[in-house]
């Protein structure tokens, strides 16, 4: 099908984008890489939007080292996340996640900010930033605010970005020496959304486990994390079983997703042990 668009405006900078958005009478929609939005518009899941194209706002792209954290611009493309040396060294979970996201042609346009703002519960990046404990930077005409990843994802395709606001970037803590980052998922075909997926970050301060495609939003499995901190892998797997209540759909039953989550957890832990053995 063909998209039905209310209008298009290309923002020259962030201020311009915010002004366009606030002048759109509630019909404004931010267009970045477009790899989910244009698909949704083509399928007429969304129609009549006034598109605010931010893809040329150059200062929202790229990665910088701010000392203890990495600042990643919202418009940084998936292909850049995969190849960027700072991310590969200090936040390898993100660069490893990219191989699971769709296909090369889509990774060439899709942006990390777009993926986070879209908040698909089956997507990799939302769970990654939850596991990393990232901070999201959101800006509106009346100022800038920071939101913790734990508070950002509200429900299916729903985030704490308010009307007239734009996600400008995220900052992630740089990995400490010896920190382990793993992402595991099961999908029927390469590039498909996962039936279930899991991110594991092991730090000196403790484990962080985030799951995707098991509920309406990415989920931090706190009881499983505590069990892993005690070294109790089976206890963590059992906790996952109790913590998750995944939906059933045409792709997989809820029971199968719950089973997969446990398998992925054991697999991730085994990989850490294999790497340090």
């Amino acid at each position, binding site marked *: *099908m*063909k*998209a*039905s*668009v*209310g*209008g*298009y*405006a*290309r923002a020259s900078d962030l201020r311009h984008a915010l002004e*366009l958005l606030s*002048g*759109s*009478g509630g019909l404004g929609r931010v*267009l970045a890489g*477009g*790899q989910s939005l*244009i*698909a949704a*518009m*083509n*399928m007429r899941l969304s129609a009549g939007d*006034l*598109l605010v*194209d931010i*893809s040329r706002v150059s200062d929202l792209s790229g990665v910088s080292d701010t000392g203890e954290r990495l600042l990643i611009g919202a418009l940084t493309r998936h*292909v850049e996340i995969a190849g960027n040396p700072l991310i590969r060294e200090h936040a390898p979970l993100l660069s490893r996640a990219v191989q699971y996201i*769709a*296909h*090369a*042609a*889509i990774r*060439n*346009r899709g942006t990390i900010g777009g993926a986070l703002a879209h908040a698909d519960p089956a997507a990799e990046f939302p769970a990654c930033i939850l596991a990393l404990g990232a901070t999201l930077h959101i800006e509106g005409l009346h100022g800038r605010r920071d939101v913790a990843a734990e508070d950002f994802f509200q429900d299916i395709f729903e985030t704490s970005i308010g009307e007239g606001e734009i996600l400008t970037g995220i900052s992630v803590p740089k990995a400490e020496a010896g920190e382990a980052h793993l992402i595991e998922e099961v999908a029927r*075909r*390469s*590039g498909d959304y996962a039936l279930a997926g899991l991110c594991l970050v092991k730090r000196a301060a403790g484990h962080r486990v985030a799951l995707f495609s098991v509920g309406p939003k990415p989920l931090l499995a706190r009881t499983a994390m505590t069990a892993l901190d005690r070294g109790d892998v089976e206890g963590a797997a059992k906790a996952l079983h109790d913590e998750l209540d995944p939906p059933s759909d045409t792709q997989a039953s809820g029971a199968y997703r719950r089973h997969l989550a446990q398998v992925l957890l054991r697999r991730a832990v085994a990989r850490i042990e294999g790497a340090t053995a």
Partner: protein
Amino acid sequence: MNEAFRDKVDISLTVNGEPVEARVPAGQHLTDFLRLELGLTGAHASCEHGVCGACTVQVDGAPIRGCLMLAPQADGAEVWTVEGLSDTDAIKDLQEAFVARNALQCGFCTPGMLVAAKDLLSRGGIPSRQEIREHMSGNYCRCTGYEAIVDAVETVARARAGKGAA
């Protein structure tokens, strides 16, 4: 309606090396622009939600989904379609290998396959069959069963590497 938002957008770009200026509908995707306005029907509009890969074209040096980029976003871009890549002989060896290996039957997916394979081959070296499959996994073919496509891409990678070493 707010005047800042346009339902027609003026764009200026190059397509297959030629400068193009046009006024396009705000919601028209790049594939429809190429096909309907420029008569370049090599890139196919099929699933139109980024799954099948038949619309793959090269924009600013990288393969992208023509159905997931709006024509207004292509302002200033350098676009290459299978027509331009054919006319310049940039993928002549790849096209010959597709014929020799029977890597197409109906041919609907072939323009997208060629653009995707060109990207992989441009990285140099000889990718493994697994790497070829992974790279081409976003391009659907309903005829060949893929084996012959992987054969064709592998053949060209080996031939190009051989020439480079000679």
